[in-house]
């Protein structure tokens, strides 16, 4: 089981969190014509790296905030966490 340090609540069990996917994906700019390929890439294409990965997690049974987590996908070691609106 992972222990994730929520930037708001402190160290908590993974049971309280829900995984939210790749934290580096940027949505195409609003109110701008987006080519199909760019939209397809945004919606469907994800990297599956072995090693450090920046992820979004939702502290769904805690403070209900989204956070960013830098985690090693091979060892599950967590290096850093930050608020969703901060750079990690």
């Amino acid at each position, binding site marked *: 089981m992972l222990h994730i340090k929520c930037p*708001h*609540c*402190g160290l*908590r*069990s993974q*049971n309280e969190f829900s995984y939210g996917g790749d934290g580096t994906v940027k949505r195409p700019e609003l109110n701008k014509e987006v080519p199909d390929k760019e939209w397809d890439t945004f919606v469907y294409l994800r990297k599956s790296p072995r090693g450090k990965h920046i992820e979004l997690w939702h502290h*769904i*049974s*805690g*403070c209900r905030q989204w956070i960013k987590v830098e985690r090693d996908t091979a060892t599950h070691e967590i290096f850093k966490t930050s608020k969703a609106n901060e750079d990690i």
Partner: protein
Amino acid sequence: MTPLSALENIHKKGLFGEHESKEQKDLIKISEIKNLLIVQVVQYKKSNVSLKDIKIDGLNLSSEALKVTSNKDTRILWTGPNNWLLVSEKKEILKNIKNDFKDSDFAVTDLSHSRAIIQLEGKNSIEVLKKGCPFNFNEIEKNVCINSVFNGITITIDMIEDNSIKIRLFALRSFGESLYHSVTDACLEFGYKNI
């Protein structure tokens, strides 16, 4: 019309579990807390209102994580950034709350009928919680509240007393019976008294 509490049909008074050969003071006491005013207060992100200027029943909203501010009747629990749960025996303060928290800055929701509240008292109460909740209870002290899970049910834990341990568990009303069964199952080995 008398309102029905969340655990009205399942919480029965008496002694249960392995209570024989144990002194009454060593048993866990379980009670349902009802007829409280429960209000969720959320400050909007765009709001610039200073929290120092607002007092409810003489209490400020604390922006310190996990902190509970309290007096004899009212407790204000921090449940997330800009998010509080106000629990009070004084139902009449709802009017003040609605006046003091302006619509343009705060969302105020009366949750009085949508929560089940179970109160545990006794030295083994923490051991009971450890069975179903992954939180490190060595860190908990008086006037600290946490949101967590108990056997998969999302709960809010409010530590009222840490000497003679007294803890309140809040869950969604619809999960109340399920949580009650989970908690009472966990209490069986210690013996418990429903009051």
